């Protein structure tokens, strides 16, 4: 029992560390990538000076995230005069916490057998094995959607309790937009559930290490290309980023539902947004990009379509899976940032029309076609 606790704590520490790291690093990635996309250099003035020397560490502006955090900590925590005190105070946490919780069901690695890692551990752990995932829940995808839906409540609370018309407008927009796109996200994922026959994210990731048509890795993006595009679009809309950033459109609503927030409370909203980029990337990786595995890779090693098998040691597999998962997440995050700096913002009526008259029928069609194909194949 003690062993389970230790392993769980290690996993939780790893997950929280990874999420917070992504939250801060993605602010830097966003700045630098935007700069590179527009032929600029990007933020590079914040530095850390080694004490008693004149050596300044700039590190391509990596410390700007640190400077931002420090600024938000030290700023005055302004409170508007008229507001619902309780709702105003908990709203940032209601937005922030579910975002972190979603990661608990996402597998970030395959099966971990501690005894195989080091001989010293074998006497204590015996032949126990742990899937690298914080919460082994059968209803993995359902948990993701349940927690994802909670962030709407946070946005609505923030907008309503601020006693500000901009906030209220932003909250209304956030509510209708997120509910619309959550529906589409659910519909697109239904197709995948039909194919894999499970909502357990570990099983979904494992099934994707197979082979499709003899040469393709059986990734979700090859099985459900339409669903992948629709899912990513809906997920970006869910995260309220450009081109779907109507709830917080600066030119229209100042900052939308968090207009009245300052200092670290506002920082929490921003941080939640950046962590959600990583979460969406992790979810997309798990559902469509083969999860933590390289193509044709399983927990035992590689087995290529030609029948060629490359067995790997357990330590190599575990490290490779951890790294591959992080790299995939980083690439998908970078792609989301690319979208954010490429497309202009929708108008409000266009946004909802896009959801209900373009994406909703497409998602439904995709689901129906998938259902018919699965029915004919499986009999």
């Amino acid at each position: 029992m003690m062993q389970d606790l230790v392993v769980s704590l290690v996993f939780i520490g790893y997950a929280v560390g990874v999420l917070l790291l992504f939250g801060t690093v993605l602010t830097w990635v966003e700045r630098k990538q935007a700069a590179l996309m527009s032929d600029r250099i990007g933020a590079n003035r914040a530095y850390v000076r080694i004490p008693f020397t004149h050596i300044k560490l700039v590190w391509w502006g990596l410390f700007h995230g640190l400077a931002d955090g420090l600024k938000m900590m030290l700023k005055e925590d302004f409170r508007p005069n008229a507001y619902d005190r309780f709702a105003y105070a908990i709203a940032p946490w209601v937005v922030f916490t579910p975002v972190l919780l979603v990661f608990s069901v996402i597998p970030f690695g395959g099966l971990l057998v501690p005894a195989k890692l080091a001989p010293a551990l074998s006497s204590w752990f015996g032949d126990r094995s742990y899937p690298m995932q914080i919460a082994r829940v059968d209803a993995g995808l359902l948990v993701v959607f349940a927690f994802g839906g909670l962030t709407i409540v946070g946005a609505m609370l923030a907008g309503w309790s601020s006693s500000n018309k901009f906030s209220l407008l932003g909250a209304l927009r956030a509510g209708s937009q997120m509910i619309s796109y959550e529906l589409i996200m659910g519909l697109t994922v239904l197709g995948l559930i039909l194919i894999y026959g499970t909502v357990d994210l570990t099983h979904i990731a494992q099934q994707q290490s197979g082979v499709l048509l003899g040469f393709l890795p059986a990734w979700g993006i090859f099985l459900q290309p339409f669903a992948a595009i629709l899912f990513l679009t809906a997920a970006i809309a869910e995260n309220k980023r450009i081109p779907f950033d109507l709830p917080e459109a600066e030119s229209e609503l100042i900052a939308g539902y968090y207009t009245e927030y300052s200092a670290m409370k506002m920082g929490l909203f921003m941080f939640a947004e950046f962590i959600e980029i990583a979460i969406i990337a992790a979810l997309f990786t798990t559902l469509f990009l083969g999860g933590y595995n390289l193509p044709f890779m399983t927990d035992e090693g590689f087995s290529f379509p030609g029948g060629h098998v490359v067995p790997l040691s357990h330590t190599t597999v575990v490290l490779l899976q951890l790294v591959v998962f992080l790299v995939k997440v980083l690439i998908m995050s970078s792609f989301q940032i690319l979208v954010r700096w490429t497309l202009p913002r929708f108008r409000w009526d266009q946004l909802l029309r896009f959801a209900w008259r373009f994406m909703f029928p497409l998602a439904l069609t995709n689901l129906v076609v998938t259902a018919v194909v699965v029915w004919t194949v499986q009999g």
Partner: protein
Amino acid sequence: MDGAGIEIVKSGPYRRKQYWNRPTMSWWEKAYLPEVVRGLVITGGVFLKNMARWITLRKGALTTYYPEETRADYARRNRGKHVLTQRPDGRPQCIACNMCATVCPAKVIEIEAAFDPDDPVHPKYPARFEIDYSRCIFCGLCVEACPEDAIRMVKEVPDLPAHDRHHMWLSLDELLTWQPQRDVAKPYPAKGAASRGGQR
């Protein structure tokens, strides 16, 4: 009633104004997704190109680090900053006549004249010659007013980013850094050959 300036507005259903320059889109553009992909390819291409340049230790940006880096593309006639020309022995050619300070519209030039008994031809010389670049408007009138061709402007900009205006002055030392190898106005000695009183 009978046309007494009263215009009767007929109310009807609202009709959206049709603009003459209403954009027209083909069905390909209306499908939205292909155009989105095209845009992503363009921006992603720029990103990857610049990224490749940075990784291979070249510069992947059109902008410059200011103030560490100066732009290479200043025009030849750009009025960037002032220089004081020198006599062959290295002293300033300025005779402290105050013409430039008088003509200066922003009143940024301050000259303190002094007497040099060793040089009977040019007994007056500037002991201090300072320009306040926080106020200079770079009009070049000082250059035109100078009777001795003692002040000129070069294309490089002064390297003066500072946290307050008191650090934006250039004094005689910084203004005398111009060491041209070839000047049509008068011959200059080679570097190091000039010493005070050498050609007296």
